[in-house]
């Protein structure tokens, strides 16, 4: 599925609306990364792959990337990360830095 962005839809008549609010697509279309004020950045020199950030992330945007064999790498999906900072707070080895977003 291609990840298009949501568009605002304004219905003209009540009859056009379903009985309850239902999105046209899955929430994959609702990219929440633009909400972010602070950007968590993983410092791979310190990261031990303990997975605590992955476990705590309330949005499930810490992705496990297979690096071949047993090796993995954790990556933050910035299209959806809202920048809550929980991963930064929870990381036991301070391998996540937090930076203010430019815009």
């Amino acid at each position, binding site marked *: 599925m291609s990840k298009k962005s949501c568009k605002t839809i*304004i*219905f003209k008549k009540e009859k056009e*609306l379903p*009985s*309850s*609010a239902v999105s046209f*697509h*899955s929430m*994959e279309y609702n990219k929440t990364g633009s909400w972010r004020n602070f950007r968590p950045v993983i410092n791979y020199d310190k990261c031990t792959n303990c997975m605590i950030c992955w476990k705590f992330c309330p949005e499930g945007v810490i992705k496990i990337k297979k690096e071949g064999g047993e090796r993995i790498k954790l990556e933050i999906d910035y299209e959806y990360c809202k920048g809550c900072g929980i991963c930064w707070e929870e990381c036991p080895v301070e391998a996540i830095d937090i930076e203010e977003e430019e815009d």
Partner: protein
Amino acid sequence: MRKVLMGNHALSYGAKLSRAQVISAYPITPQTEVIELLSQMCASGELNAKFIKVESEHSAMASLVGASAVGVRTFTASSSQGTALMHEMLHWAVGARTPVVMGNINRAFAPPWSIWTEQNDSLSQRDTGWMQVYAQNNQEVLDSVIQAYKVAESVELPAMVVLAAFVLSHTSEAIEIPAQEKVDEFLPPYEREYKLDPDDPHAFGGLTDPENYYEFRYKIQKAMEKALDRWEETGREFENIFGRRYGLVETYKADDAKNLIISSATVASTARKSVDMLRDKGEKVGLLRIRVFRPFPAKKVRKILSSVEKAVVIDRNIGFGVSGIFCQEVKAAMYNEKNNPTIFGVIAGLGGRDVTSRNIVEIYEDVMKMEKPESDIIWKGLKE
């Protein structure tokens, strides 16, 4: 088949015969037997349903909203504090347009603790958008569950079947149990238009801006209005198959009545006897029982009250700071009418105090001595 059933088990059999597919509940006196029997039925395989054990009534309703969104038939029951804890999710079930059916056993709120009957628990859910039907006997409890599914699914609104604690919940009556084939004929499987389906993911109930939210509320009101007709039609359909007739309201000796007693649930059932006692004394009195409280059958009430001089509404509930809740509703329905009877509001039987047929005769005789109500609330049986 006839069976001797307590009101709580009448709810369970209603859910079973309706082929509820997901049941989720948390026990509370005086509701416990409802889910006790249903969980046994699920465990033995007598009922092919998923029984979800939860840690609270809030979770019970939350799980049923989800299950109903999938497109399956759902059931729960609660009472008093439990129904109050469900409150947030009761609103959710309405907005999500999930036709969950629940039993509510009317029990008074704490403090002080009480397990006895009073209608404030269900009536304080008045503005959630749940339909509410107040049963007067155990047969009606069972029959109303089956009808509630039919109406709820056709208008996409949840429905509450309400019965009095102990007076019905723990009182055994002989009940006609409808044959499963006939119930199946009356109540086909639930079909839902927009389904929660992992293979076709959508977000349900997401953030809706002021440009669209207003219309969703309008649609709930329209569904309620449609439900007025649906309860009547469903009652007639039910009669055709099962031989027992139900409607939005029920009257007794009201056709030629000069004065009317108005009540609901088991108090109304008792009042039938009071009407007979008063008729024996020469009083031209009748009874109006309001069976469906939401949607409120205002048109029916207006029609019946248009030819009446005085009406006395007996409420086993109280809207603190105002008056009895059924009384408020009846008065509101009559306000713009030309032939508007004098309406008296009596509060009786709070916290499960008995309301006997003799009490109702006394209430009637007392208010008929008054030309106009001396206050918005007339207390009956207060230890002054």
